[in-house]
Protein backbone atom coordinates (compact mmCIF):
# COMPACT_ATOMS: atom_id res chain seq x y z
CA UNK A 1 0.00 0.00 0.00
CA UNK A 2 1.28 3.46 -0.85
CA UNK A 3 1.71 6.01 1.92
CA UNK A 4 -1.37 7.90 0.74
CA UNK A 5 -3.37 4.70 0.65
CA UNK A 6 -2.36 4.04 4.27
CA UNK A 7 -3.57 7.51 5.32
CA UNK A 8 -6.78 7.11 3.36
CA UNK A 9 -7.54 3.71 4.92
CA UNK A 10 -6.70 5.02 8.39
CA UNK A 11 -9.19 7.89 7.90
CA UNK A 12 -11.85 5.42 6.76
CA UNK A 13 -11.17 3.24 9.79
CA UNK A 14 -11.24 6.21 12.15
CA UNK A 15 -7.73 5.55 13.40
CA UNK A 16 -6.60 9.05 14.41
CA UNK A 17 -3.22 7.99 15.79
CA UNK A 18 -2.33 6.17 12.59
CA UNK A 19 -3.42 9.10 10.42
CA UNK A 20 -1.33 11.50 12.47
CA UNK A 21 1.73 9.26 12.42
CA UNK A 22 1.60 8.62 8.69
CA UNK A 23 0.84 12.25 7.83
CA UNK A 24 3.88 13.31 9.85
CA UNK A 25 5.91 10.67 8.07
CA UNK A 26 4.74 11.85 4.66
CA UNK A 27 5.55 15.47 5.51
CA UNK A 28 9.00 14.46 6.73
CA UNK A 29 9.55 12.58 3.47
CA UNK A 30 8.70 15.77 1.60
CA UNK A 31 5.40 14.64 0.07
CA UNK A 32 3.47 17.58 -1.37
CA UNK A 33 0.87 18.90 1.08
CA UNK A 34 -1.76 19.00 -1.66
CA UNK A 35 -1.22 15.30 -2.30
CA UNK A 36 -1.51 14.41 1.39
CA UNK A 37 -4.69 16.45 1.61
CA UNK A 38 -6.38 15.26 -1.57
CA UNK A 39 -5.12 11.70 -2.00
CA UNK A 40 -4.98 10.84 1.70
CA UNK A 41 -7.34 12.76 3.97
CA UNK A 42 -10.04 13.91 1.54
CA UNK A 43 -9.92 10.65 -0.39
CA UNK A 44 -10.70 8.82 2.86
CA UNK A 45 -13.57 11.12 3.73
CA UNK A 46 -14.98 10.72 0.22
CA UNK A 47 -15.31 6.99 0.81
CA UNK A 48 -16.93 7.70 4.19
CA UNK A 49 -19.43 10.04 2.51
CA UNK A 50 -20.47 7.42 -0.02
CA UNK A 51 -20.79 4.66 2.57
CA UNK A 52 -22.77 6.93 4.89
CA UNK A 53 -25.14 7.87 2.11
CA UNK A 54 -25.68 4.20 1.28
CA UNK A 55 -26.44 3.34 4.93
CA UNK A 56 -23.40 1.08 5.06
CA UNK A 57 -22.01 3.07 7.99
CA UNK A 58 -23.65 5.33 10.56
CA UNK A 59 -23.01 8.50 12.57
CA UNK A 60 -20.42 7.04 15.01
CA UNK A 61 -18.27 5.72 12.14
CA UNK A 62 -18.47 9.12 10.40
CA UNK A 63 -17.47 10.91 13.59
CA UNK A 64 -14.36 8.83 14.22
CA UNK A 65 -13.35 9.20 10.58
CA UNK A 66 -13.77 12.98 10.84
CA UNK A 67 -11.66 13.01 13.99
CA UNK A 68 -8.99 10.98 12.24
CA UNK A 69 -9.04 13.40 9.31
CA UNK A 70 -8.65 16.31 11.75
CA UNK A 71 -5.62 14.62 13.28
CA UNK A 72 -4.00 14.69 9.86
CA UNK A 73 -5.23 18.22 9.11
CA UNK A 74 -3.61 19.47 12.30
CA UNK A 75 -0.27 18.23 11.00
CA UNK A 76 -0.48 19.85 7.57
CA UNK A 77 -2.42 23.00 8.47
CA UNK A 78 0.70 25.12 9.20
CA UNK A 79 2.07 24.09 5.80
CA UNK A 80 -1.03 24.70 3.70
CA UNK A 81 -0.72 28.49 3.61
CA UNK A 82 2.56 28.34 1.70
CA UNK A 83 1.72 25.29 -0.38
CA UNK A 84 -0.46 26.78 -3.06
CA UNK A 85 -3.27 24.44 -2.07
CA UNK A 86 -6.60 26.22 -2.47
CA UNK A 87 -9.65 25.36 -0.48
CA UNK A 88 -12.67 24.28 -2.47
CA UNK A 89 -14.79 27.05 -1.04
CA UNK A 90 -15.92 28.73 2.15
CA UNK A 91 -19.18 27.79 3.83
CA UNK A 92 -20.82 29.68 6.69
CA UNK A 93 -22.90 27.21 8.66
CA UNK A 94 -25.35 27.65 11.54
CA UNK A 95 -28.76 26.81 12.95
CA UNK A 96 -31.41 29.50 12.66
CA UNK A 97 -32.85 31.72 15.36
CA UNK A 98 -34.53 29.81 18.15
CA UNK A 99 -33.07 26.46 17.14
CA UNK A 100 -30.55 24.82 19.46
CA UNK A 101 -30.35 21.51 17.61
CA UNK A 102 -26.89 21.22 16.10
CA UNK A 103 -26.26 17.53 15.55
CA UNK A 104 -27.20 17.59 11.88
CA UNK A 105 -25.41 20.87 11.30
CA UNK A 106 -22.22 19.51 12.87
CA UNK A 107 -22.30 16.43 10.66
CA UNK A 108 -22.74 18.60 7.58
CA UNK A 109 -19.77 20.69 8.71
CA UNK A 110 -17.58 17.60 9.09
CA UNK A 111 -18.54 16.26 5.70
CA UNK A 112 -17.88 19.61 4.01
CA UNK A 113 -14.49 19.87 5.69
CA UNK A 114 -13.80 16.32 4.65
CA UNK A 115 -14.51 17.35 1.07
CA UNK A 116 -12.03 20.23 1.21
CA UNK A 117 -14.21 23.19 2.17
CA UNK A 118 -13.32 25.72 4.85
CA UNK A 119 -16.27 25.74 7.23
CA UNK A 120 -17.11 28.73 9.40
CA UNK A 121 -19.43 27.27 12.01
CA UNK A 122 -21.35 30.08 13.70
CA UNK A 123 -23.10 27.71 16.07
CA UNK A 124 -26.74 27.66 17.15
CA UNK A 125 -29.59 30.14 17.51
CA UNK A 126 -28.43 32.64 14.89
CA UNK A 127 -30.64 35.64 14.17
CA UNK A 128 -30.60 36.75 10.50
CA UNK A 129 -28.15 39.49 11.34
CA UNK A 130 -25.60 37.00 12.65
CA UNK A 131 -25.65 35.19 9.33
CA UNK A 132 -25.26 38.53 7.55
CA UNK A 133 -22.32 39.55 9.73
CA UNK A 134 -20.62 36.19 9.12
CA UNK A 135 -21.10 36.64 5.36
CA UNK A 136 -19.60 40.12 5.51
CA UNK A 137 -16.66 38.89 7.54
CA UNK A 138 -15.82 35.62 5.77
CA UNK A 139 -17.00 36.20 2.22
CA UNK A 140 -18.29 32.63 1.72
CA UNK A 141 -19.63 31.06 -1.46
CA UNK A 142 -22.32 29.25 0.50
CA UNK A 143 -24.44 29.87 3.58
CA UNK A 144 -25.85 26.70 5.15
CA UNK A 145 -28.84 26.96 7.47
CA UNK A 146 -30.34 24.22 9.59
CA UNK A 147 -33.57 23.93 11.60
CA UNK A 148 -35.10 20.97 13.41
CA UNK A 149 -38.46 22.53 14.23
CA UNK A 150 -41.37 23.43 12.00
CA UNK A 151 -41.68 26.57 14.10
CA UNK A 152 -38.09 27.80 13.61
CA UNK A 153 -37.99 26.94 9.91
CA UNK A 154 -39.68 30.24 9.13
CA UNK A 155 -36.55 32.09 10.20
CA UNK A 156 -34.82 30.67 7.13
CA UNK A 157 -36.92 32.85 4.88
CA UNK A 158 -36.24 35.90 7.03
CA UNK A 159 -32.51 35.16 6.92
CA UNK A 160 -32.49 34.83 3.14
CA UNK A 161 -34.28 38.16 2.86
CA UNK A 162 -31.90 39.75 5.33
CA UNK A 163 -28.88 38.77 3.23
CA UNK A 164 -30.21 41.30 0.69
CA UNK A 165 -27.62 42.34 -1.88
CA UNK A 166 -25.24 39.57 -0.73
CA UNK A 167 -27.58 37.03 -2.30
CA UNK A 168 -25.94 37.84 -5.64
CA UNK A 169 -22.66 36.37 -4.47
CA UNK A 170 -23.76 33.83 -1.87
CA UNK A 171 -25.71 30.64 -2.43
CA UNK A 172 -28.02 29.42 0.31
CA UNK A 173 -28.34 25.75 1.19
CA UNK A 174 -30.82 24.55 3.80
CA UNK A 175 -31.55 21.35 5.68
CA UNK A 176 -33.03 19.86 8.84
CA UNK A 177 -35.66 17.27 9.72
CA UNK A 178 -38.81 19.23 8.72
CA UNK A 179 -37.27 20.92 5.67
CA UNK A 180 -38.30 19.78 2.19
CA UNK A 181 -37.37 20.68 -1.38
CA UNK A 182 -40.79 22.29 -1.68
CA UNK A 183 -40.07 24.52 1.30
CA UNK A 184 -36.65 25.40 -0.11
CA UNK A 185 -38.27 26.44 -3.39
CA UNK A 186 -40.91 28.48 -1.59
CA UNK A 187 -38.40 30.55 0.38
CA UNK A 188 -35.98 30.95 -2.50
CA UNK A 189 -33.11 28.83 -1.21
CA UNK A 190 -30.64 27.63 -3.86
CA UNK A 191 -30.40 24.07 -2.57
CA UNK A 192 -31.89 21.62 -0.14
CA UNK A 193 -29.83 18.79 1.30
CA UNK A 194 -31.70 15.97 3.04
CA UNK A 195 -28.52 14.64 4.66
CA UNK A 196 -24.87 15.44 5.29
CA UNK A 197 -23.50 13.43 2.37
CA UNK A 198 -25.88 15.07 -0.07
CA UNK A 199 -24.89 18.44 1.36
CA UNK A 200 -21.42 17.91 -0.09
CA UNK A 201 -22.81 17.03 -3.53
CA UNK A 202 -25.08 20.08 -3.46
CA UNK A 203 -22.25 22.34 -2.32
CA UNK A 204 -20.10 21.06 -5.19
CA UNK A 205 -22.90 21.88 -7.63
CA UNK A 206 -23.41 25.33 -6.10
CA UNK A 207 -19.75 26.37 -6.32
CA UNK A 208 -19.55 25.01 -9.87
CA UNK A 209 -22.61 26.93 -11.05
Amino acid at each position, binding site marked *: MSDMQVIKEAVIGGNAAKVKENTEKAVAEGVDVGIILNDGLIAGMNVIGVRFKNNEI*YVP*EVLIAARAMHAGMAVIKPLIANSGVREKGVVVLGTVKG*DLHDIGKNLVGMMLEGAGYRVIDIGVDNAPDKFLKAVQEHNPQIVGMSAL*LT*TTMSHMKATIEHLGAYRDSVKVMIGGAPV*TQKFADEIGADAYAP*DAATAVEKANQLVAS
Partner: protein
Amino acid sequence: MRLPAGTERTETGGLDEMYTARERVLAALNHSQADRVPLALGGSWYGVTDNLYFNVLKKVGLEPSVPPFRPKLSHTVNYYDDRLLSALDVDIRHIWLGFSENGAPPSGGGTDNWGIEWVETEGYRGAKSHPLANATIDDLDKYNWPGMEGLDRGQIRARIQEIRRSGEYAIAGRAVNSYGLFELCCLLRGHEQFNVDLLIEPDFARALVEKVADVFYRLTDCYLDAAGQDIDILELPGDDYADNRGLMISPQLFREFFAPHWQRLIALIKSRSPEIKVVFHSDGAISALLEDLIAIGVDVVHPLEPLPVTDQAAVKQAVQGRLVILGGVDIKEALSGSRDAIAVEVRQRLANLAQGGGYIFAPSNHLQHDIPPENLITLYREASELGRYPLTF
Protein backbone atom coordinates in the same frame (compact mmCIF):
# COMPACT_ATOMS: atom_id res chain seq x y z
CA MET B 1 -56.78 -7.14 33.65
CA ARG B 2 -59.25 -8.85 31.42
CA LEU B 3 -60.00 -8.60 27.78
CA PRO B 4 -63.33 -6.79 27.70
CA ALA B 5 -66.40 -8.38 26.25
CA GLY B 6 -66.80 -7.24 22.70
CA THR B 7 -63.27 -7.64 21.45
CA GLU B 8 -63.94 -11.18 20.26
CA ARG B 9 -66.88 -9.98 18.27
CA THR B 10 -64.90 -7.53 16.27
CA GLU B 11 -63.92 -9.59 13.25
CA THR B 12 -66.55 -7.97 11.11
CA GLY B 13 -66.34 -4.61 12.82
CA GLY B 14 -70.11 -4.20 12.87
CA LEU B 15 -71.22 -0.61 13.26
CA ASP B 16 -74.12 -1.52 15.49
CA GLU B 17 -72.03 -2.79 18.34
CA MET B 18 -71.28 -0.44 21.18
CA TYR B 19 -67.72 -0.23 22.36
CA THR B 20 -66.28 1.67 25.23
CA ALA B 21 -63.19 3.71 24.52
CA ARG B 22 -61.10 1.17 26.42
CA GLU B 23 -62.52 -1.77 24.47
CA ARG B 24 -61.72 0.04 21.25
CA VAL B 25 -58.09 0.52 22.33
CA LEU B 26 -57.70 -3.04 23.64
CA ALA B 27 -59.02 -4.38 20.35
CA ALA B 28 -56.30 -2.47 18.50
CA LEU B 29 -53.66 -3.55 21.03
CA ASN B 30 -54.69 -7.15 20.39
CA HIS B 31 -54.37 -6.73 16.62
CA SER B 32 -58.05 -6.69 15.96
CA GLN B 33 -60.61 -4.05 15.06
CA ALA B 34 -63.57 -2.61 16.93
CA ASP B 35 -66.13 -0.12 15.59
CA ARG B 36 -63.50 2.41 14.64
CA VAL B 37 -59.81 3.16 14.85
CA PRO B 38 -59.01 4.35 18.38
CA LEU B 39 -57.68 7.88 18.74
CA ALA B 40 -54.80 9.03 20.94
CA LEU B 41 -53.44 12.41 21.94
CA GLY B 42 -51.50 13.70 24.93
CA GLY B 43 -48.89 10.95 25.17
CA SER B 44 -45.18 11.31 25.76
CA TRP B 45 -44.50 12.24 22.13
CA TYR B 46 -47.88 13.16 20.68
CA GLY B 47 -49.15 16.04 22.77
CA VAL B 48 -50.32 19.56 22.07
CA THR B 49 -47.80 22.37 22.59
CA ASP B 50 -48.95 25.07 24.96
CA ASN B 51 -49.78 27.85 22.52
CA LEU B 52 -51.80 25.53 20.30
CA TYR B 53 -53.55 24.18 23.41
CA PHE B 54 -54.59 27.69 24.46
CA ASN B 55 -55.75 28.47 20.93
CA VAL B 56 -57.83 25.30 20.73
CA LEU B 57 -59.39 25.92 24.14
CA LYS B 58 -60.53 29.31 22.91
CA LYS B 59 -61.89 27.75 19.74
CA VAL B 60 -63.96 25.10 21.53
CA GLY B 61 -65.01 27.38 24.41
CA LEU B 62 -63.24 25.48 27.18
CA GLU B 63 -61.30 28.35 28.73
CA PRO B 64 -59.75 28.71 31.25
CA SER B 65 -57.05 26.06 31.02
CA VAL B 66 -56.45 23.32 33.56
CA PRO B 67 -53.37 23.67 35.79
CA PRO B 68 -50.20 22.41 34.05
CA PHE B 69 -49.27 18.78 34.72
CA ARG B 70 -45.67 19.91 34.36
CA PRO B 71 -45.66 22.40 37.24
CA LYS B 72 -42.41 24.05 36.16
CA LEU B 73 -43.62 24.63 32.61
CA SER B 74 -40.46 22.83 31.65
CA HIS B 75 -41.44 21.63 28.19
CA THR B 76 -43.22 22.81 25.07
CA VAL B 77 -46.12 20.58 26.21
CA ASN B 78 -47.17 21.35 29.79
CA TYR B 79 -50.93 20.79 29.87
CA TYR B 80 -53.02 17.65 29.91
CA ASP B 81 -56.70 18.42 29.58
CA ASP B 82 -59.25 15.58 29.75
CA ARG B 83 -61.98 17.97 28.59
CA LEU B 84 -60.20 18.64 25.32
CA LEU B 85 -59.57 14.91 24.80
CA SER B 86 -63.29 14.23 25.34
CA ALA B 87 -64.19 16.93 22.84
CA LEU B 88 -61.92 15.24 20.30
CA ASP B 89 -63.24 11.68 20.95
CA VAL B 90 -59.85 10.52 22.18
CA ASP B 91 -59.96 6.99 23.62
CA ILE B 92 -56.91 6.99 25.91
CA ARG B 93 -56.20 8.88 29.14
CA HIS B 94 -52.70 9.21 30.54
CA ILE B 95 -51.14 9.15 33.95
CA TRP B 96 -47.63 10.35 34.79
CA LEU B 97 -45.05 9.37 37.39
CA GLY B 98 -43.92 12.86 38.33
CA PHE B 99 -40.17 12.20 37.98
CA SER B 100 -39.50 14.17 34.81
CA GLU B 101 -42.36 16.56 35.49
CA ASN B 102 -41.13 17.64 38.93
CA GLY B 103 -37.43 17.09 38.33
CA ALA B 104 -37.22 19.31 35.28
CA PRO B 105 -35.32 22.59 35.23
CA PRO B 106 -37.40 25.67 35.99
CA SER B 107 -38.93 27.62 33.13
CA GLY B 108 -36.23 29.69 31.46
CA GLY B 109 -33.49 27.14 32.06
CA GLY B 110 -31.48 25.52 34.83
CA THR B 111 -30.40 22.07 35.97
CA ASP B 112 -32.61 18.96 35.84
CA ASN B 113 -32.58 15.95 38.14
CA TRP B 114 -29.90 14.24 36.02
CA GLY B 115 -27.52 17.18 36.48
CA ILE B 116 -27.89 18.40 32.90
CA GLU B 117 -28.00 22.16 32.51
CA TRP B 118 -30.51 23.60 30.05
CA VAL B 119 -30.98 26.92 28.33
CA GLU B 120 -34.20 28.03 26.73
CA THR B 121 -34.79 29.90 23.53
CA GLU B 122 -38.22 30.67 22.10
CA GLY B 123 -39.80 28.09 24.38
CA TYR B 124 -37.51 25.24 23.31
CA ARG B 125 -34.72 23.86 25.44
CA GLY B 126 -31.23 22.83 24.60
CA ALA B 127 -28.54 21.28 26.79
CA LYS B 128 -25.92 23.83 27.76
CA SER B 129 -23.43 21.48 29.35
CA HIS B 130 -22.79 17.78 29.60
CA PRO B 131 -21.93 16.78 33.18
CA LEU B 132 -20.08 13.59 32.20
CA ALA B 133 -18.17 15.10 29.27
CA ASN B 134 -14.80 14.34 30.88
CA ALA B 135 -15.81 11.42 33.09
CA THR B 136 -14.03 8.09 33.44
CA ILE B 137 -15.69 4.77 34.29
CA ASP B 138 -14.77 5.28 37.96
CA ASP B 139 -16.49 8.67 37.93
CA LEU B 140 -19.75 6.98 36.97
CA ASP B 141 -19.91 5.26 40.36
CA LYS B 142 -19.41 8.55 42.15
CA TYR B 143 -21.95 10.48 40.07
CA ASN B 144 -25.03 11.76 41.86
CA TRP B 145 -27.62 9.66 40.01
CA PRO B 146 -31.22 10.71 40.64
CA GLY B 147 -33.06 8.93 43.43
CA MET B 148 -36.71 7.98 43.76
CA GLU B 149 -37.48 10.56 46.43
CA GLY B 150 -40.36 12.92 45.85
CA LEU B 151 -42.41 10.45 43.85
CA ASP B 152 -46.00 10.70 45.04
CA ARG B 153 -47.93 7.46 44.87
CA GLY B 154 -51.04 9.22 46.22
CA GLN B 155 -51.05 11.64 43.30
CA ILE B 156 -50.88 8.78 40.81
CA ARG B 157 -53.73 6.95 42.55
CA ALA B 158 -55.82 10.12 42.57
CA ARG B 159 -55.24 10.59 38.85
CA ILE B 160 -56.32 7.02 38.15
CA GLN B 161 -59.49 7.54 40.17
CA GLU B 162 -60.16 10.76 38.28
CA ILE B 163 -59.92 8.89 34.97
CA ARG B 164 -62.11 6.05 36.22
CA ARG B 165 -64.80 8.51 37.29
CA SER B 166 -64.80 10.20 33.89
CA GLY B 167 -65.48 7.10 31.79
CA GLU B 168 -64.23 3.77 30.51
CA TYR B 169 -60.98 4.84 28.91
CA ALA B 170 -57.83 2.90 28.25
CA ILE B 171 -55.21 4.13 30.70
CA ALA B 172 -51.66 4.76 29.53
CA GLY B 173 -48.63 5.60 31.60
CA ARG B 174 -46.53 8.37 30.16
CA ALA B 175 -42.82 7.64 30.03
CA VAL B 176 -40.91 7.73 33.32
CA ASN B 177 -38.32 10.01 31.74
CA SER B 178 -38.33 12.50 28.89
CA TYR B 179 -35.33 10.93 27.15
CA GLY B 180 -34.41 7.31 26.52
CA LEU B 181 -31.12 5.46 27.00
CA PHE B 182 -29.29 6.66 23.89
CA GLU B 183 -30.49 10.26 24.04
CA LEU B 184 -29.87 10.63 27.74
CA CYS B 185 -26.34 9.24 27.41
CA CYS B 186 -25.79 11.76 24.60
CA LEU B 187 -27.02 14.55 26.88
CA LEU B 188 -24.91 13.44 29.83
CA ARG B 189 -21.76 12.87 27.81
CA GLY B 190 -22.18 15.19 24.84
CA HIS B 191 -23.74 13.91 21.65
CA GLU B 192 -20.61 13.60 19.57
CA GLN B 193 -18.50 12.13 22.36
CA PHE B 194 -21.05 9.46 23.25
CA ASN B 195 -21.38 8.41 19.61
CA VAL B 196 -17.59 8.14 19.47
CA ASP B 197 -17.53 6.27 22.79
CA LEU B 198 -19.64 3.50 21.28
CA LEU B 199 -16.72 2.66 18.98
CA ILE B 200 -13.61 3.93 20.77
CA GLU B 201 -14.50 3.59 24.47
CA PRO B 202 -17.03 0.76 24.46
CA ASP B 203 -16.43 -0.15 28.11
CA PHE B 204 -17.25 3.37 29.18
CA ALA B 205 -20.29 3.52 26.93
CA ARG B 206 -21.53 0.20 28.26
CA ALA B 207 -21.11 1.34 31.87
CA LEU B 208 -22.89 4.63 31.22
CA VAL B 209 -25.86 2.98 29.51
CA GLU B 210 -26.14 0.56 32.40
CA LYS B 211 -26.17 3.35 35.00
CA VAL B 212 -28.95 5.17 33.15
CA ALA B 213 -30.88 1.94 32.61
CA ASP B 214 -30.64 1.18 36.33
CA VAL B 215 -32.36 4.48 37.12
CA PHE B 216 -35.08 3.73 34.55
CA TYR B 217 -35.49 0.31 36.14
CA ARG B 218 -36.04 1.74 39.61
CA LEU B 219 -38.41 4.41 38.29
CA THR B 220 -40.43 1.83 36.40
CA ASP B 221 -40.57 -0.36 39.49
CA CYS B 222 -42.01 2.58 41.49
CA TYR B 223 -44.50 3.29 38.71
CA LEU B 224 -45.69 -0.31 38.64
CA ASP B 225 -46.03 -0.31 42.44
CA ALA B 226 -48.41 2.61 42.17
CA ALA B 227 -50.28 1.84 38.96
CA GLY B 228 -49.23 -1.53 37.57
CA GLN B 229 -52.67 -3.07 37.97
CA ASP B 230 -54.49 -0.13 36.42
CA ILE B 231 -52.68 0.74 33.24
CA ASP B 232 -53.22 -0.87 29.86
CA ILE B 233 -50.28 0.76 28.17
CA LEU B 234 -46.85 1.93 29.33
CA GLU B 235 -44.71 4.26 27.25
CA LEU B 236 -40.95 3.70 27.50
CA PRO B 237 -38.72 6.78 27.56
CA GLY B 238 -38.55 7.94 23.95
CA ASP B 239 -35.25 7.33 22.19
CA ASP B 240 -34.44 8.47 18.68
CA TYR B 241 -32.27 5.99 16.80
CA ALA B 242 -33.07 7.22 13.31
CA ASP B 243 -33.25 10.35 11.23
CA ASN B 244 -35.17 11.07 8.04
CA ARG B 245 -33.08 8.74 5.94
CA GLY B 246 -32.39 5.78 8.20
CA LEU B 247 -30.72 4.60 11.38
CA MET B 248 -28.18 6.90 13.06
CA ILE B 249 -26.33 4.00 14.67
CA SER B 250 -25.88 0.53 13.24
CA PRO B 251 -28.26 -2.29 14.21
CA GLN B 252 -25.20 -4.02 15.70
CA LEU B 253 -24.55 -1.12 18.09
CA PHE B 254 -28.24 -1.04 19.02
CA ARG B 255 -28.18 -4.77 19.78
CA GLU B 256 -24.93 -4.61 21.70
CA PHE B 257 -25.46 -1.52 23.86
CA PHE B 258 -29.16 -0.71 24.13
CA ALA B 259 -31.40 -3.67 23.33
CA PRO B 260 -30.37 -5.73 26.39
CA HIS B 261 -31.36 -2.90 28.74
CA TRP B 262 -34.66 -2.21 27.00
CA GLN B 263 -35.33 -5.92 27.18
CA ARG B 264 -34.56 -5.94 30.92
CA LEU B 265 -36.99 -3.06 31.43
CA ILE B 266 -39.74 -4.69 29.39
CA ALA B 267 -39.22 -7.98 31.23
CA LEU B 268 -39.73 -6.14 34.52
CA ILE B 269 -42.99 -4.63 33.27
CA LYS B 270 -44.27 -7.96 31.97
CA SER B 271 -43.26 -9.80 35.12
CA ARG B 272 -45.23 -7.36 37.25
CA SER B 273 -48.23 -6.89 34.95
CA PRO B 274 -48.25 -9.26 31.97
CA GLU B 275 -51.23 -7.52 30.33
CA ILE B 276 -49.52 -4.15 29.97
CA LYS B 277 -48.63 -3.28 26.39
CA VAL B 278 -45.28 -1.56 26.05
CA VAL B 279 -44.76 1.34 23.64
CA PHE B 280 -41.38 2.18 22.13
CA HIS B 281 -40.78 5.54 20.48
CA SER B 282 -38.16 6.56 17.98
CA ASP B 283 -38.43 9.36 15.47
CA GLY B 284 -37.16 8.84 11.98
CA ALA B 285 -36.89 5.98 9.53
CA ILE B 286 -36.83 3.18 12.07
CA SER B 287 -38.04 0.28 9.91
CA ALA B 288 -34.69 -1.54 10.03
CA LEU B 289 -35.01 -1.94 13.82
CA LEU B 290 -38.60 -3.19 14.03
CA GLU B 291 -37.73 -6.89 14.13
CA ASP B 292 -35.25 -6.19 16.93
CA LEU B 293 -37.93 -4.31 18.85
CA ILE B 294 -40.40 -7.16 18.45
CA ALA B 295 -37.72 -9.60 19.61
CA ILE B 296 -37.13 -7.73 22.88
CA GLY B 297 -40.85 -7.62 23.69
CA VAL B 298 -42.05 -4.25 22.37
CA ASP B 299 -45.80 -4.36 21.68
CA VAL B 300 -46.41 -0.95 20.13
CA VAL B 301 -44.17 1.39 18.14
CA HIS B 302 -44.61 5.15 17.76
CA PRO B 303 -44.69 6.92 15.34
CA LEU B 304 -43.51 5.21 12.11
CA GLU B 305 -43.17 8.66 10.62
CA PRO B 306 -44.46 9.21 7.09
CA LEU B 307 -41.11 9.71 5.38
CA PRO B 308 -40.11 9.32 1.75
CA VAL B 309 -37.92 6.33 2.64
CA THR B 310 -40.63 4.60 4.70
CA ASP B 311 -43.27 2.57 2.90
CA GLN B 312 -45.81 2.57 5.72
CA ALA B 313 -48.17 0.10 4.05
CA ALA B 314 -45.37 -2.40 3.41
CA VAL B 315 -44.06 -2.06 6.97
CA LYS B 316 -47.57 -2.51 8.34
CA GLN B 317 -48.01 -5.67 6.32
CA ALA B 318 -44.67 -7.01 7.50
CA VAL B 319 -45.45 -6.53 11.20
CA GLN B 320 -49.22 -7.16 11.11
CA GLY B 321 -50.30 -9.20 14.11
CA ARG B 322 -46.93 -8.75 15.83
CA LEU B 323 -46.50 -5.03 16.38
CA VAL B 324 -49.15 -2.36 16.89
CA ILE B 325 -48.53 1.01 15.27
CA LEU B 326 -49.36 4.21 17.11
CA GLY B 327 -49.04 7.52 15.28
CA GLY B 328 -48.01 7.77 11.65
CA VAL B 329 -49.73 11.08 11.00
CA ASP B 330 -47.66 13.82 9.34
CA ILE B 331 -47.24 17.01 11.33
CA LYS B 332 -44.96 18.83 8.93
CA GLU B 333 -47.22 19.85 6.08
CA ALA B 334 -50.73 18.40 6.01
CA LEU B 335 -51.90 19.96 9.26
CA SER B 336 -51.14 23.48 8.14
CA GLY B 337 -53.32 22.97 5.07
CA SER B 338 -56.98 23.03 4.18
CA ARG B 339 -59.76 20.82 5.49
CA ASP B 340 -59.46 18.72 2.34
CA ALA B 341 -55.73 18.34 2.79
CA ILE B 342 -56.30 17.04 6.31
CA ALA B 343 -58.92 14.56 5.10
CA VAL B 344 -56.46 13.34 2.46
CA GLU B 345 -53.80 12.90 5.13
CA VAL B 346 -56.15 10.99 7.45
CA ARG B 347 -57.35 8.75 4.63
CA GLN B 348 -53.78 8.03 3.59
CA ARG B 349 -52.67 7.00 7.09
CA LEU B 350 -55.74 4.86 7.66
CA ALA B 351 -55.29 3.17 4.30
CA ASN B 352 -51.63 2.48 5.11
CA LEU B 353 -51.93 1.45 8.74
CA ALA B 354 -55.46 0.65 9.92
CA GLN B 355 -56.50 -2.30 7.77
CA GLY B 356 -57.20 -5.31 9.95
CA GLY B 357 -56.70 -3.40 13.21
CA GLY B 358 -53.52 -3.02 15.21
CA TYR B 359 -53.44 0.71 14.70
CA ILE B 360 -54.00 3.67 17.04
CA PHE B 361 -54.36 7.06 15.39
CA ALA B 362 -52.03 9.79 16.68
CA PRO B 363 -49.71 12.50 15.38
CA SER B 364 -46.07 11.61 14.71
CA ASN B 365 -44.88 14.23 17.16
CA HIS B 366 -46.19 16.98 19.39
CA LEU B 367 -48.55 19.25 17.51
CA GLN B 368 -46.82 22.63 17.20
CA HIS B 369 -48.28 26.08 17.45
CA ASP B 370 -47.94 26.67 13.72
CA ILE B 371 -51.03 24.49 13.27
CA PRO B 372 -54.33 26.42 13.14
CA PRO B 373 -56.55 25.34 16.08
CA GLU B 374 -59.47 24.44 13.81
CA ASN B 375 -57.16 22.01 11.98
CA LEU B 376 -56.53 20.03 15.16
CA ILE B 377 -60.28 19.69 15.62
CA THR B 378 -60.71 18.75 11.97
CA LEU B 379 -57.96 16.14 12.24
CA TYR B 380 -59.71 14.24 15.03
CA ARG B 381 -63.20 14.65 13.51
CA GLU B 382 -62.00 13.24 10.22
CA ALA B 383 -60.18 10.38 11.95
CA SER B 384 -63.25 9.54 13.99
CA GLU B 385 -65.46 9.54 10.88
CA LEU B 386 -63.15 7.99 8.30
CA GLY B 387 -61.77 5.48 10.78
CA ARG B 388 -65.01 3.49 11.04
CA TYR B 389 -64.51 -0.21 10.38
CA PRO B 390 -64.82 -1.72 7.90
CA LEU B 391 -62.75 0.86 6.10
CA THR B 392 -64.34 1.80 2.81
CA PHE B 393 -61.22 2.87 0.95
